[in-house]
């Protein structure tokens, strides 16, 4: 019995972002985003903007859209808490915002400090008027991100895709 080919989901996300004509890629790194960051950095049509804090990416997305460009904001779930007040800009101005959020604190988490924000992430986003979607299986990630991008930019809304920790694999600090 040969193993089914494993979907290369970071490559599928990159393809979805390229198809959506994303030009600015803002991020605070997460291990789960490492490969996607490398792929985007190697794409001459995408401009990388490393941030000191996730909320900067909300302002960046607003400015990019005012200037006629589409952007994406990459972060881990603990970064969501840093964005809340900035997200009022998106809601009030009916701006599009696409967020890709790697989940921590849910599946096999080793670090207890990740659990509170991980647990609060979907509701915190919803309270901030962000539409929340989730991708948990490698095969579905590309389509979920493509659909989220279309929703965000066609309907001028904030859309977050939560990438399940199960998809990424729990991080371990043990030998």
């Amino acid at each position: 019995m040969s193993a089914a080919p494993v979907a290369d989901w970071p490559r599928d996300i990159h393809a979805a972002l390229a198809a959506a004509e994303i030009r600015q890629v803002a991020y605070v790194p997460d291990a789960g985003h490492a490969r996607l960051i490398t792929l985007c950095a190697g794409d001459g049509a995408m401009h990388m903007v490393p941030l000191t804090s996730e909320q900067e990416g909300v302002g960046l997305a607003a400015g990019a859209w005012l200037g006629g460009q589409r952007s994406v904001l990459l972060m881990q779930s603990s970064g969501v808490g840093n964005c809340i007040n900035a997200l009022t800009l998106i809601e009030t101005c009916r701006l599009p915002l696409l967020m890709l959020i790697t989940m921590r604190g849910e599946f096999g988490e080793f670090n207890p400090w990740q659990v509170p924000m991980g647990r609060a992430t979907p509701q915190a986003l919803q309270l901030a008027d962000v539409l929340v979607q989730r991708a948990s299986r490698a095969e579905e990630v590309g389509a979920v991100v493509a659909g989220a991008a279309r929703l965000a930019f066609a309907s001028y809304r904030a859309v977050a895709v939560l990438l399940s920790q199960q998809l990424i694999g729990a991080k371990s600090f043990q030998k």
Partner: protein
Amino acid sequence: MSRANTLDRRAVVRSLLARRGGLLLVTGLGAPAWDATAAGDSPLTFPLWGAMGSAAMIGLGLALAQPERAVLVLTGDGEMLMGLGSLATIGVQRPANLALAVLDNERYGETGMQETHTAHGVDLAAIAAGCGFAQSETIRDMAGIEALGARLDARQGPLFAQVKIAADTPPLALPPRDGALLKNRFRAALLGPQADLA
């Protein structure tokens, strides 16, 4: 710490915007937005009414998207202090077409004139210089403002100016409040009819 903060904020902003041409302007919330409105409302002004700490990053996103256009962020010392990390982020990007002018009254004017950190010597211009801005200065006279205004179009930035202004409260001059309107009129003025077809 305060020394001779004598510049009149309305005169500063009027001078900076006197020949604004196609300048794209983002303002921080509160008094800087009123100052820009007093100098003349424009569809190419995007005044914030909230999202404190975001003005510089909105300017960065805009400057990256429109590298041929000069972008000015006009904000308060309190608003800038809330987004200090964005100076580091801008320092990495170094967009030549972006300028930040901080109207520094050393106060949170909007909330009752409480002292900000700059009243205790925090030097925003030094921070911006340390973040890699191409030019960074503290301006205390109108000659400095006129020189800054003349450089906005040169696209030799990123520029940072900490403008020491008097802590007074000129009459209100309010821009539109509807965020969707502000966004739509800005995009229409900048991008033309295709703004709504994208």
